[in-house]
């Protein structure tokens, strides 16, 4: 006879504990209480601070506020995602172009003040983790997240683990060379992928067309109030979705370059799913359709191998804090 049944082991979803997730960006600190199923309670947004000390104070203040808001529900850890180079093992923010921190031992400082276990990671790593656990790549252990913004960032998971590389610098996808001696990149090199497929490239291409007074730019011109310098990727997305053919062409062009770069990444990493994040993915298939076609056409062995699905990110701008919280939960918070 089998032994008497005991209480079923608690599934992750039954875990009532909370983890504070914090996303430290260049302008705001976003935070919330994150459940074991990735839901966010009490989302807050606070202005950042320009001083290193001040920014630590902001994070502590935000977390304290959330601990109070948790009203007796158990909070077991704090996860912080920061926009910059993070030494994950030591919990140090090494270098962050948009933050005042340099070699900031953030984990130790926060643990000292908060009396909770703290995990610190790069924001893109955190976002990839979130999309893997709760978002567009749920359950897929080999996931590639590519985020189109000013440049192209992202992170990849292999067998369910975020890969950081030897120095925490993995995931600089935007600086793969896609055109030898191509367009100049602020990184000092030429032909970087992000000069062909980022959100800012889309805005710049639209700006050029409007400045040249090309026919068909009426809608783009209206969207920027006649000031071409104000054109951003989002404007092109909006125009494309409203049926503007020129905007659709620009999105398709960026989409094709997106697909070519994704083919290179897929050859190297063979992800089970590609998740594309950033504001411009609001364009949906106007961008991702051409990207998917270019990927399938370019991938070696197409027809003999599966082509990974290319999906828009689901979690938007809470991905960083949700993922940071989940990494902290996994670390044993």
């Amino acid at each position, binding site marked *: 006879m089998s032994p008497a049944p005991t209480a079923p082991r608690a599934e992750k979803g039954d875990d009532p504990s909370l983890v504070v997730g914090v996303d430290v960006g260049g302008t705001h600190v976003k935070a919330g209480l994150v459940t074991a199923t990735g839901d966010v309670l009490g989302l807050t947004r606070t202005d950042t601070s320009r001083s290193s000390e001040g920014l630590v104070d902001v994070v502590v203040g935000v977390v304290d506020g959330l601990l109070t808001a948790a009203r007796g529900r158990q909070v077991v850890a704090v996860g912080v995602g920061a926009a910059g180079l993070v030494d994950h093992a030591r919990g140090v923010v090494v270098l962050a172009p948009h933050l005042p921190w340099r070699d900031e031992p953030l984990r130790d400082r926060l643990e000292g003040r908060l009396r909770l276990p703290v995990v610190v990671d790069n924001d893109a790593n955190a976002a990839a983790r979130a999309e893997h656990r709760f978002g567009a790549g749920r359950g897929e252990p080999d996931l590639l997240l590519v985020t189109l913004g000013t440049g192209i960032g992202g992170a990849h998971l292999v067998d369910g683990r975020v890969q950081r*590389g030897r*120095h925490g610098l993995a995931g*600089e996808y935007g600086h793969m060379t896609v055109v030898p001696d191509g367009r100049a990149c602020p990184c000092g090199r030429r032909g970087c992928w992000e000069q062909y497929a980022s959100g800012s490239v889309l805005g710049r291409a639209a700006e050029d067309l409007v400045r040249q007074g090309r026919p068909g730019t009426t809608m783009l011109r209206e969207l920027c109030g006649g000031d071409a310098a104000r054109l951003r990727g989002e404007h092109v997305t909006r125009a494309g979705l409203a049926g503007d053919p020129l905007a659709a062409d620009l999105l398709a062009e960026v989409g094709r370059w997106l697909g070519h770069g994704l083919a290179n990444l897929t050859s190297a990493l063979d992800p089970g799913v590609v998740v594309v994040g950033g504001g411009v993915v609001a364009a949906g298939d106007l961008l991702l359709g051409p990207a998917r076609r270019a990927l399938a056409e370019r991938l070696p062995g197409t027809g003999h191998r599966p082509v990974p699905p290319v999906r828009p990110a689901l979690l938007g701008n809470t991905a960083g804090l949700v993922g940071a919280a989940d990494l902290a939960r996994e670390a044993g918070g």
Partner: protein
Amino acid sequence: MSLCLGVDIGGTKIAASAVAPDGTILARARRESPAQDADRIERTVADLVEELTAQVSGSGEQVVAVGVACAGFIDRHGESVVFAPNLAWRDEPVKAHLEALTGLPVTVENDANAAAWGEYRFGAGRGVHDLLLVTLGTGVGGGIVTDGHLVRGAHGFGAEVGHLRVVPDGLRCGCGNTGCWEMYASGSALVREARAVVAGGGAHAAYLAGLCGEDPEELDGVMVTEAARAGDPAAVEVLETVGRWTGEGLASLAAVLDPGCVVVGGGVSQAGDLVLRPAREAFARHLTGRGHRPTPPVVVAELGNDAGMVGAADLAARAVGAGPSGR
């Protein structure tokens, strides 16, 4: 002592060895490869296993597992060879068949992955947990270790780096696409460029032309390396070109992976610094964030043609829990 066997199955020969837990090869055997007969390949592997088992049993060693490596796509569970360009295997359940034939646990791995693993465990990348291996041969193969784990990918197609597009609308590749890395950075590219030099004639081509008896088709990679070693400027230039393309492609991969070490293997790597110096220069020049990050060393593979066998044997050892506990 418990040993594992490593078997490298190629289109012309099958090489096998008995490998100690520290990566030392204790015995070797090889056969012609019956590449066009799926069943005979498996029986030949079984024969080699039997031969090596007999060889080492005299000294009291026991064979506990077999690791098999071949070029091609292996399903992610390491059970079947989905497609192997040089062998008759198509969706061949190699693991099950070989286990039935040998009575031993069998591990199946892509050859470049196995070579990367071998170099990571016992070779040029020993102890570097984030490692990129590229092999410059007929094509360009690759193997990636991240955080001490082999990247097989979601479908077992990981680290197939030879068809990265490095030049839009570039040279036409046998895969049907254009601008693939291996059209610029492989042994085939080296020979193609050198043949073009010979075909072009003139004083510049004289040395290479002499080596191949004026017939460009007779020229091979070894001759080019030999000419470069002797100081022939044309051969040096061809190796530099291939090295430069190698370095550029590596820089793109390093942006993605942030490896602690890059290991270059394959026939072209035997040219040593003649190809690696230009590769290192181009790599450093094209690596994003240069000046703000350490440039990983680019080194020649240490295990040569044994890397795949040794890596496969170690992977087999780990699969049965017989290997030294690594990371």
